[in-house]
Structure formats: structure tokens, C-alpha cells
């Protein structure tokens, strides 16, 4: 440990626990465990129905929107594309790498595992290239699962993860979800220039 740096034990415990899970039972199993846990957390969210899309946006602004309560404020870029300014795991990653210089071994494998097509990433429309760190496997499914608790004008909503940006600035794009939503890669790329996460909200007719 470098001298003079402060370590948040909650951060190190969480990040190192992921490392242990990867070592003990492999990246796929660790990924599944984290995703199930995230979905389980989302299921605790109370259902809410916003009369209009504008009221949904207002709830983001005043931080009463369930998604906002979990990940912080996102901003509507137009055309139902949203950008999240701060990654909710940013402080943890920053704290960890600030002390230990680099993230634990196995994280790259974990991220690769998350981006593979699978049943759960299909159900929640995440991954597929949009994962840039292991924490995306917690964050993205959790947001999609929370969205299942939200209605707008009585209609269900769906979230598609379009892209994400790592702390290093490297961007990841989910070509599959770009294709399904019809959102161009350029729009997502531009959103990620000043956001860490980009997703599309669909109101299911």
C-alpha cells in the first residue's frame, strides 16, 4: 500500500470479493452470482407509474426516480437516449486503484464474460460489448430490472444498454442493442464523450 493513501474497507472488500469469486468458481459463475444479486436487489423496489414521460424525467431531476436513486442522475439526450454522468462504481474503483495502482487480476476475463451473449444479458438487454468493467455486470442488469418496476402512462418500459465508458476513457458499444433500437453508434459515441454510460428507454406499446 502506498503511504498516505486512505483505503475504504467497504470498497476493497467488495472488489476483492469479486476477485475471490472469480478465482473460486470462475468468471461465468461469479458473473451469474453478481447479476442474480443485482436483480434480487431491484425486485425490492416499489412499483411506480408516471403519468407522462415528462413526469418520469422530472423524477430523475428531483432524484425520486428509482433508477436515479440507485445510480445517480442521468440526462435525456433526446430520442429516449440517456447519458449517465458518473459511474456509480467510480468512487470504488478510484479508491482501489488509488491505493493498489491496478484492479485485481481476473477483471478483464470477467468483463469479457459479461459481454458474451447469454440468457440473462438477452433478457435484460445488457452486455454484448457494452460492458467495460466487472461492475457493469451489476449495474446494467440492475437498472434494467428496476425499469421493470416502472410504468409510464400505464405502459411498461424497457431499457437497452447501448454503451459504456471505462475510467481509462475506453468506450464499449453494444452493436446488438444498437441494431435493435435503431440508435446510431455516433449518437452513443457522442453521448459517451461526456457521460460514462448510455442507454435507450423504450415505452412498450
Amino acid at each position, binding site marked *: 500500500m502506498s503511504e498516505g493513501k486512505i483505503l475504504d474497507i467497504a470498497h476493497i472488500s467488495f472488489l476483492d470479493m469479486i476477485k475471490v469469486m472469480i478465482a473460486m*468458481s*470462475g468468471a461465468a459463475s461469479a*458473473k451469474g452470482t453478481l447479476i442474480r444479486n443485482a436483480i434480487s436487489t431491484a425486485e425490492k423496489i416499489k412499483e411506480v407509474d408516471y403519468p407522462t414521460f415528462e413526469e418520469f424525467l422530472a423524477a430523475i431531476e428531483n432524484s425520486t426516480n428509482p433508477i436515479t436513486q440507485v445510480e445517480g442522475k442521468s440526462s435525456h439526450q433526446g430520442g429516449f437516449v440517456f447519458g449517465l454522468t458518473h459511474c456509480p462504481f467510480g468512487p470504488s474503483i478510484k479508491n482501489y486503484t488509488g491505493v493498489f495502482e491496478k484492479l485485481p487480476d481476473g477483471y478483464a476475463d470477467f468483463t469479457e464474460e459479461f459481454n458474451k451473449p447469454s440468457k440473462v444479458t438477452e433478457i435484460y438487454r445488457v452486455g454484448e460489448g457494452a460492458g467495460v468493467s466487472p461492475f457493469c455486470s451489476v449495474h446494467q442488469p440492475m437498472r434494467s430490472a428496476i425499469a421493470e418496476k416502472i410504468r409510464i402512462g400505464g405502459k411498461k418500459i424497457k431499457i437497452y444498454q447501448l454503451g459504456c465508458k471505462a475510467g481509462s476513457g475506453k468506450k464499449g458499444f453494444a452493436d446488438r442493442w444498437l441494431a435493435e433500437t435503431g440508435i446510431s453508434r455516433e449518437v452513443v459515441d457522442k453521448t459517451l464523450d461526456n457521460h460514462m454510460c448510455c442507454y435507450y428507454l423504450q415505452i412498450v406499446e
Partner: protein
Amino acid sequence: MCQAAGANAGAGFCHLAGLINTAGRVVAGNDALKKILIVDDEEDMVWSLRQNINNERLQVEIFTAASGEEALKVLSSNHIDLVLTDIRMPGMSGLDLLLEVKNRFPYTMVIIMTAFPSNEFKKEALLRGSLHFIEKPFDIKELRDLIRHALREENVFKGTVAGVGLSDVIQINGLSRATSLLRVKQGEHLGIIYFQEGQVVHAICDELDGEEAFFRIMQFKGGRLDSMSYTDLPIRTINAPVEALIIEAARRMDEAGLDDVASGPVCADVDLEDGVEYKESAPVHVGGNNGSGSAMVDRVGTESAEREDEMSSLKDVLSEFTNIPGVNTACLVGRDGFLLDSIAIAGIDTEMIGAIASSGFGASESMGKQLGKGAMSMSMIEYGNGPVMLSPVGDDAFLVIVADKDANLGMIRLKIKKHAGQIAETAAI
């Protein structure tokens, strides 16, 4: 020349056509009594045995012979239950006599008496079919106990049981916690598998000992199988559980027999006689091809060949497992623990099983990597009420097979190997 007991004190004695009772008197032959033939060229030994074998607890009709050749004559004209023979005799040796007895009088048991015991000799005698050994000099009480023990084995059912495989017999021994040995003969090959309280503890086959001998025996395609008890385990060479041995044997059979399976199965008639017997039978050719795969492999091959075209859905493929007696649940699970499909008995939360199993599967795989064991082919967890088997399917999923404790694990193993590719294809994983 054969003589009655009281008249054969001199050389050339052959056999006693009567019973010497506890008072040392010869009594009339009795069909209800078991018949023992003592074979030894040492007159004193024969005399001593003749005088002392019978007592209050053991009443047998005793015949004697001074050589192997004379013994065969006695055997030809009398139904002898047990032969007690020395090993070193002029002319035909005790081992050669043993071989003749097993060939010509398969229901006659043999006890070998020897003053020169060795493991090699015991192995050879066992392979030729001897039940027991007794080392000279021996206590007469010890011999009586051995004879009583051997003759009790006559009081068993004899007959023929069809449709039983060698792995079935081994599993039956395991379930019944038998302490016995199986003598397996196929053509020129002989093998013996020792059980101790149901566990396979030793095997010999041709020049091999231990697990390799066991696996070679398991590759026999038909043959004769005698089940018998033993009193003296030569050495313990096997410590693996029966199920693990059967699975490994099945894997080897599968690997060795894939071409044979592909080219047509053999139907092996399996008979149970004098304990258990397998009979070799002519192969049945399917699809115009010749083949000589093992019975187990072939049953799988035949069934799956018939059904292959029908298995268009994952459920169809999974039912291949749940159709095995004793298998109650089959799940296909993504490596991340999310359930892809399943057939399960009521009360099993397959979603939860998938999640939990993914940790177990991943842990097994991680351990293999850590130990440098290469790719994982199967993991089995044994519980009191039966095993759970985990096996990879493609790169991104695995099977969970939940079985009762009496399920045919070798069959499950083979079906996994047989259908893994098809499952991966059907599930598009």
C-alpha cells in the same frame, strides 16, 4: 482303483465311497450329504484329513485320490461338491486339476492346499477358479471352517438372469455391501474383482493389478462371470469409490468403443449362473455394419440412434436422461447459473439448483485448473440419497443430472458423452 475308506490304507488309494463319522467309522453313502474329494499324494495327509474333517458341526461324505488324474475319474462318476487338493503332485499338478475342474465341473468348488504360498501362485490359482487357499501346516479347525464356509456357498440360487451388465453386477455388489469376488472370463482373458463391503478393493487381470486391471475387465465384451466369496484379500490396490470406477470405465469404454458403436452394436446376452454368468453371443448387426462395442455402449447407441431424429427440442434431449431408471431431474444450465431448460420432479426449484450448481461446477473447474488437470469432463457429488452429476456442454453451459443412489451411473455417463454435442447444438450454445 477306488476303495472304501477302511480299505485304502496302502498306496494306490483312490476314494472313499462312504462317510467317516465322528467315531471314525465308515457309514453308507448318503445323497443328502455334501461330497468332498481330497487329492494329495501324501498318504499321511490324506489319512489325517479323512479321520478328522467330520465332527459334530461338519458331516460330509469323503472321497480321496492320490493324483489329479485319479481325481478326475472320481469327479466323472460322482457329483463332488468340493475338491480339496494339494498343489505339488506327480503328474497333473493341483493347478492343472483346478483348471480341469473349472472347465468340466464348473459347479464344483476347489480349495487349494499348499506349503509354498506366494501371491503369484494365489493369483494364478484364483484366475483358474480356486475359491480358497489353506497353507500347510494348518489347523484342522481352520480347514473345517473353510469347508463349511465353502459349502454354504452351494446353498445359493443358481440360474440365468438376462439383461444384466457387468457394471450392474458391480453396482449390485456395492449396494449389498458384498465381500466377495467376481471371476470374469472372456476367451483367453481372465480377471478377478475383489469386493470388500461393497467397495472394489483389488483387481487382477492378465498381467495387470489394481485399477488398470479393473478397467481391462470392464472392457470384456461378454464372457463368463462367477461370483464367489473369499477369505483372504491378497492386497488392497484400489481405493476409488465404485461409482467413480464405473464412470471411468465407461469413459474408457466409450473412448475405446466409439468406432465400434458407430459401426453397429453387439447385443450381449447376459446370464446369471452359479452366482452370475455372462455368455458371449454373436453380434447383431444394425444398419448393415459390423460392430463389437460393449453392451452398455451399444444399448445407448441403439436407443439414441432410434430416437435421434425425434430429438428436436432440448426437452427431448433432457428426457434421454430422465428416462434412465433412477434419474429424476436433468437441467441444462448456463455457466453463469441461469437455467436454460429442465425436466424435474415436483419440489425441485431448478432455477435455484442452476444458480447453486454453477458455483459447484465453477469450483470443480477451477480446482482442475489449479491442479493442472486439464479440461473438466464431469463432476459428481455423492449424497446419502444419490449423486448429482455436473458435466460441461459446449463452452457456455453444463448439465445437472440428479439421480437416486441406485441409478446406473455408467449409463448416465455414456448418455452425457453421447448427447453433449447434440444438446449444445439444440440449445445453440
